[in-house]
């Protein structure tokens, strides 16, 4: 026992550790805190293209940039700072707030020397999870596989002066009120101009459009309460981020209110409530929406895609696209939204895409896009 017990304990410890390394008992950890790398010799190898890509993306997830960069093929024409910036984002874009959480990779094409993999990356961001699909090429170099990373060229614009001649509304509160908006002025006139309730795979959805009929800007929230046959409220929800909250005079925004896990069959009535407050606002920055079209994406889903053009001289850090889709009667049949993960620099454009549910894609006759935005220091 004197010799056997230590051997048993040490052997059992090693066996248990080996079992854990090979996948038994893995646990998720917190996100965004450096947890370090694997002990040398225990990290995954790059003997196959799948392993190489997995190891590469694990390093990206852990922000082990040196290791990730060392996994690039020598044919990659990118320097390390540019490579890191492409993953970490710049100019206060959504990507600068994002962390790669999970990924799935599947091969599209493979030979003994090169391979192409489609990677579906799920990012955690302040505005919710964002998915990004990217096709990556890998090359067999020596006895390992390496990732080929193309050089990203950031858009550049010539030096210029952009005159600002758009309207802006300021508010003077006239007191030490801690609240925002105005307390002593009538609320702006805001009206819901359409409402449509439908069942979706995730529950009931109430959507439509709201207009600011006033000559002053309004901060708008739309709330809806589902009421059953007995007049009792089933649930109440708000438009949350499926609306452009700041509406300039005469501006229209689509809204969507989700009621998860509730079917419309028990709903007798929908009580709508729009709340508007006077707020300071500006028509600048102006963001143009161009080249809009509905077509399938790489995964076969129907998407509305286009380009956002920043026509102003200010950087828009996080653009938010809200698209409303209409049937041939002009009724809103769906509202989708999406965030663009690159900042919209002055006088440059960025692509966007928002998804349309498969069941509705064929019914879409028209669409309308509103662009909401977040700019650092201007909340």
């Amino acid at each position, binding site marked *: *026992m*004197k010799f*056997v*017990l*230590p051997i048993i*304990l040490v052997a059992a*410890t090693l066996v*248990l*550790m080996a*079992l*854990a*390394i090979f996948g*038994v*008992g*893995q*646990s*998720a*950890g*917190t*996100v*965004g*805190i450096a*947890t*370090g*790398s*694997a*002990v040398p010799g*225990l*990290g995954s190898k790059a003997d196959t293209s799948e392993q190489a890509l997995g190891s590469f993306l694990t390093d990206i997830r852990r922000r082990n940039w040196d290791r990730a960069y060392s996994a690039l093929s020598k044919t990659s024409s990118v320097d390390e700072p540019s490579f890191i910036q492409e993953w970490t984002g710049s100019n206060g874009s959504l990507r600068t*707030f994002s*962390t790669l*959480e999970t990924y799935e990779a599947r091969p599209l094409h493979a030979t003994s020397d090169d391979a192409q993999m489609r990677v579906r990356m799920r990012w*955690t*961001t*302040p*505005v*919710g*999870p964002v998915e990004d699909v990217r096709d990556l090429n890998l090359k067999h170099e020596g006895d390992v596989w390496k990732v080929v990373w193309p050089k990203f060229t950031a858009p550049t614009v010539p030096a210029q002066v952009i005159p600002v001649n758009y309207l802006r509304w300021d508010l003077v509160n006239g007191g030490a009120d*801690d*609240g*925002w*908006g105005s307390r002593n002025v009538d609320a702006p006139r805001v009206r819901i101009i359409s409402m449509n309730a439908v069942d979706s795979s995730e529950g009931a959805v109430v959507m439509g459009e709201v207009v600011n009929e006033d000559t002053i800007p309004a*901060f708008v*929230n739309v*709330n809806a309460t589902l009421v059953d046959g007995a007049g009792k409220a089933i649930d*109440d929800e*708000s*438009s*949350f*981020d499926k*609306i452009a*909250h700041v509406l300039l005079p005469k501006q229209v925004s689509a809204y969507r209110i989700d009621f998860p896990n509730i079917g419309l069959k028990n709903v007798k009535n929908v009580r709508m409530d729009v*709340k508007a*407050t006077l*707020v300071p606002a500006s028509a600048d920055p102006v963001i143009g929406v161009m080249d809009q079209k509905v077509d399938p994406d790489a995964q076969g889903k129907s998407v509305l895609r286009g380009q956002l053009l920043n026509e102003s001289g200010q950087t828009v850090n*996080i653009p*938010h696209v809200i698209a409303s889709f209409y049937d041939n009667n002009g009724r809103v049949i769906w509202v989708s939204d999406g965030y663009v993960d690159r900042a919209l620099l002055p006088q440059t454009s960025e692509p966007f895409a928002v998804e349309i549910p498969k069941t509705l894609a064929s019914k879409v006759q028209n669409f309308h896009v509103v662009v*909401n935005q*977040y700019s650092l220091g201007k*909340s």
Partner: protein
Amino acid sequence: MAALTVGLGRLGLPERGNWRPIATYISSKPCRQILNRSSMQLALEPASLSTAVSYPREGYSRPIPLFAIVLVALAVHGPLLLMQLPAGSFDTNFHIFFASHYAHHWFDPWNEKWFAGFSQTTYPPLTHQWIALLSNVFGLKMAYMVVQLIGVLLLPVGVFRFARIWVDDRSASHAALGSVFLGALAFLVYQAGQLATVTSAALYLNALPYFYEWMTEASGGSLIKGIVVSWTAAAAHHVTLIFGLVLFAGPVLWVAWLDARDERVPGSVAGVISRAMIFALLVGAGVAMVLAPYWLALIQHPIHQIPIPHDSRANFLLNSITGINYFVIPYGALILALPFIVIRGASSPRLRPLLIGFWITFIFGLGGTTPLPRLLLGRAYEILTFERFTFWATLMAMPIVGVLVVELMDRFHAKAAAGLALAAVTTLGAALWWLAANPFRPAGTTDVDPVIAFLNRDGHDAFRYITLGFGSELAKVSTYANAGSVDGDYNSARLLPEMTHYGSAQLTNAKFYGSSGMAALRAMLSHANRYGLKYIFVHDPYYEPLLTFVGWRKIETFGSGQITAWSKDDVPPAHKMESDAVPAPWEGLLWGTVPMAVSLLAIFLELLLPVRRRIPVPVEVPARAEQPYVA
């Protein structure tokens, strides 16, 4: 070896290798004098004998007086606690928040400041109630430090008493001294702020020798004191007692059984087993009563929430920094002693139960580095955090480490003393250095006073609030603000669906839980009107885009822009949320009296009822000495 012979000769002991006459000798007067120093003396352990009797002329060959060890603990940890070093730890503000509630509502455990109302009967109250009591003299923060200091001072006493079950006084005293410098202790006290875990472990270690004495000697005094101290430990922290039953008490029961079987103690095997069952029954019944409101709350609302990630469940081999945080720092120089612990623990039959207990605790402390904790604990694996197992493992290792220290001191004298002192100080120093160096460190330097002032003026407390990016400072805001929050720095009492349906802990730390955390935050923000959630305080610009897009506006800036206040205009004032978790008045009465009464009884018994120590009278001894331990 020569010195040993001299030592044995001076006491009239037979020479090494000829142990048969020792049975006769042990009942002789000189030996009884030696053994009289400790009823737990390992009379039959060659190591114990050798270490107990060798080098009698050397100053460091005697046990270190317990009082001196406690003074060392006071000298080391007293200043650190007076400097309020744990104030920046993860859980200190949480404990102070709970204590603050007891200070104001001793008999009403329903606290409306978190989660729109929750019951404090979901967490054992003893340490919080002591803080609340002492806060009348010291104030809340210093009262916390005082209670933590008492826990830290009780720990070496507990280690000494626990170690004497296994080894001689001298080794036990070195084990106790070593426990003052444990990296795991510094980790829990200064980084994690686990007041209840440390205090409960210290109490539990003090209870175990009584358990052993009761089993082997049928001492009624030991039974009473063991039970009351165990109840007190449970009133401080239930998890320690539950796992302690298996991990600590299991080996003690095992060794008592071995001692009875080999007739080293007066009790029979059947007597040991039956007395252990009596002890367990009485402790179990008492814990059921002392913590009755806790059990009722648990039965009414079992923990069904989605598991919350914790890095102590990570695989340390695949996450090097996590490994440093949860293994290297807590163990420190003990890592070097691991081979000795295993080899020596396996060499001696009496130490084997301790070794097995240590190994299981050690494996649990490794979290997700092995699959064993998940396999054995099932769903509880996702609820528990595992740094406490590492702490317990270091405590269990200390008796054997004490033997190592004695052997090194006997062999290398001053050099060993210097090396061991260096190792101890380095271990503690590394844990303190890691407070500032680790990436998990809480952001404890935020000035939240303007936030508290904002919430306490102009009727702002009519609404609820949350903080974002405040970390453990949320509890500080909650302690001093009159307004309630829908968030809270405590996972077990959460009942709001916006929090329990996602694998995320506090909303204030939402980003660290990835998509789950942000989904929980979005769910809460979408129901702001329902809860009267009007104010959000942001200490991390990460959250600003979300607040902007979902309809909140910045209204005020505090502390040079470090903290911003956000508001939503259409939120109605908060109203009281109906809950079936509100404890009955009798539960509040029980909660406010029994745990404190039990702890006072334990103090009374310890101070005023000394237990009569009995000398074990061995009957049979090994014919041959095992491996000599002293060269």
